[in-house]
């Protein structure tokens, strides 16, 4: 009996194994959020408990402090290799959300990511993005090649038929590989529940009846009213909600096509 979550899991494992076989210096972009933590678990499934690739975290320095504490403990507990990327030059020049949200995301996330890729000679990244997150992600391919400047040629993506991914890449290009593209937010939570995954406590409701549904930088990420304090109650909440997952993320709402613009320049 193969249930729906198992089908998703096996599909993702296939993709991860393809990427590992064919992409030089593969890494996993880990934001410590629920999606990339599920992705990390799937990497372990693919490699029978091993994590043969490094994790990359782009630290804008504006992350919610608990995230960094949790990150360091998790990496220590699981013996993982972590590369932390940061755009120190921009931070030294006083970059922050007050300079404009999209400008800030561009400098502290996109540019920091591209620099980290270059510095570490990374040929490909596993990313936990999903189609149901927002419109421009819905149009992604499982494998998306990015030239040095990270741009996404969304108007002319290569054909991706059946499970044949185009993973050959020229030196100066890196691959974005999206094993969770077909998952939904609900799938992710149901999977976390089923696999009993260790997940960032910020997702759970605090004493004030507030929780994060999506994690990011503290100046641009809001909490939602919720009393869901266990994984089961989060699953129930997601099943019935009518608000969008990224409603608390300010950059999405900066203007109509904000995410398309950010992402076409290399944003995750």
């Amino acid at each position, binding site marked *: 009996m193969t*249930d729906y979550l198992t089908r998703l899991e096996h599909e993702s494992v296939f993709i991860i194994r393809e990427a590992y076989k064919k992409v030089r210096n593969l890494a996993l972009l880990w934001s410590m959020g629920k999606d990339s933590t599920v992705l990390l678990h799937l990497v372990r499934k693919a490699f029978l408990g091993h994590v043969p690739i490094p994790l990359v975290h782009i630290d804008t320095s504006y992350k919610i402090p608990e995230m960094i504490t949790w990150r360091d403990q998790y990496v220590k507990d699981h013996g993982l290799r972590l590369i932390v990327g940061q755009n120190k030059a921009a931070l030294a020049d006083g970059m922050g959300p007050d300079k404009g949200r999209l400008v800030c995301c561009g400098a502290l996330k996109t540019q920091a990511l591209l620099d980290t890729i270059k510095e570490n000679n990374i040929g490909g990244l596993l990313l936990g993005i999903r189609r*149901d997150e927002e419109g421009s992600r819905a149009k992604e391919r499982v494998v998306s090649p990015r030239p040095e400047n990270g741009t996404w040629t969304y108007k002319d993506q290569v054909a991706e038929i059946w499970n044949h991914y185009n993973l050959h890449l020229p030196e100066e290009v890196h691959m974005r590989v999206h094993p969770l593209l077909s998952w939904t937010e609900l799938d992710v939570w149901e999977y976390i529940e089923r696999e009993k995954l260790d997940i960032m406590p910020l997702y759970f409701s605090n004493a004030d009846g507030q929780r994060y549904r999506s994690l990011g930088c503290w100046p641009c990420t809001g909490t939602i009213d919720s009393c869901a304090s266990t994984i089961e109650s989060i699953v129930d909440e997601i099943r019935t909600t009518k608000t969008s997952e990224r409603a608390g993320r300010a950059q999405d709402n900066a203007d109509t096509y904000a995410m398309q613009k950010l992402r076409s320049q290399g944003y995750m």
Partner: protein
Amino acid sequence: MTQHEQRKIVIVGHVDHGKSTLLGRLLMDFGKVPQQTIEKVRKVCESRGVQLEPAFFLDAFQEEQEQGISIDTTRVNFEFDGHRFLLIDAPGHLEFLKNMTSGASGAETGILVIDGHEGIGSQTLRHLKILGILGVGKVVVVVNKMDKSGYKQARFEEVAAEIRAHVEREGQTCLAVVPISALKGENLTSACEGLSWYAGLPLLPQLVASTTAVSVDTAEAAAAEPLRMVLQDVYRFTDERFYAGRIVSGSIAPGARVFFSPSGKVSTVEALETFPPRDMPLAVKGDSVALRLKDQIFVERGEVVSLPDQTPEVNNELQAKLIWLNSEPLDWANEYLLKVGTQEVSCRLEPSNMVFQQVGNGDFVDVVIKAQKPICFDRNGFGVDKFVICTTYETVACGSIMALTTAAPQGSQKSKNIVVESGFVKREEHENRHGHKGTVLWMTGLSGAGKSTLAKALERRLFAAGFRVQVLDGDNLRSGICADLGFEPEDRAENIRRVAHLSKLLLNTGTVVISACISPYEKDRRIAKEIIGAEDFHELFIFCPIEVCQSRDPKGLYKKASGGQISDFSGLNAPYQPPANPKLRLDSSTMSIESEVDSIIAMLQAEGIKPPVSAVGARGELAWKP
């Protein structure tokens, strides 16, 4: 644990027949579109001065919303009446066909949307055919925009009959034809007034009734299919090897004796490894697995695992139907990458009917795929029976494998009842008598590059050294044995085929053959090589810049060709495909005839070809020294 079923359905059809509108409507009514998203789309529509457009939920790109088109495919989940659907939107423009195909390749059933007012469009039928190639053999047809055609039953019946006939002709199954208005949301879940004459089910109940959910129990179905597991990788994180891959057909259990194709290795499955470790008694179609085998055998990515008595076919030639998906047309001379399962092999394509017509974006063609090494595959609509054709970075075609080709003789053999006679004097006997080996020197190059001139000088030198030698000069042959042929690609192919067979006959008499024909097509030269045999075929590229050829113009042909008196002139108005890997490349614009001949003789010496001892006198020796 939650148990979901899911139906994967792709929505296809002609441009503007309402695919995205239908999907957007379904998403709005049954998907969980967050209130903010609806508000966002409402605002965009207001600012553009249009009604709320359901398609905008899918066509999220600015360019898509501005131009009112879908550029790329996307997919959405929604639930209806407890049934879970994955609906895949596919753009209708021919320009975006690769995106449509990318989307449709993930589906099990198709919804073919036709504008009831406009009727069947060019992309309607193309999409139907593509679904056939992709193995999506079942379609539900939707006749949309019934509001626009006044809900007329007669019009609906007309369109329905026409499309049913087309579906049948393609060998596919038409599950139902349903009239709807996607924009108004009519006849999606319940009947509407205008369509009271319609006796069938509304669209969604129809989908539930006529499509099966894949999920539920694949184990039973899988048991009936032969096992096929495509090997992705072999892991050695510890001392042990794990053979990782995906089951694409059938099932596998510990204890099974397994056969690897094409290597032919055999072992027994000890366990199906998992993380976290648990006892896994069975893996079925769709599962990603890691096998622990009894023997640590050496196999590589690309192999197909099966049971020993149900192995896939192995061949380096296969017949297939494909659809071309690139704006660059198919280049029959090009080398492509063939991907079947996890196998990747370079290959060339040849039209099944040997007519080398132009194949562009959206064209279907039957081909023979000639792979550089044997690959394994299936043909009966299961397992490893689908493939894609790629360039280095892109997928340019996809298709399904048809019947196996038998080793047919090159060229079309019209007479069937021919039994090849044997027992004649052998080539070695001829060679022993002459005291030297035979071989073929195949010159290729533009008209005026100096092939005939070089052939004459080379023939003279070899003759002086004591060899039996024969030149096959293109123009001379065309005045005799090939006098019936012109310069169309097909005629050129036939010309080369004849020259190759002549060479082969002379080779059997132990002769050194010098062929001097333009032979502009890489494919034709490859066929010549096959006829003659790779070990005797020496490709000599007589290079000369076309400007130099033009200024030489020994036969006045360039003048005529540029004056329009000759069409199909290689290098001017017909292609010349230079060889990628010639045995020798001789530049006649910089080398003297003597040094060209010397290079060829040096090559023959390196190949171990020697003149007959009897002929080595002073003149002979002189001729044989480079």
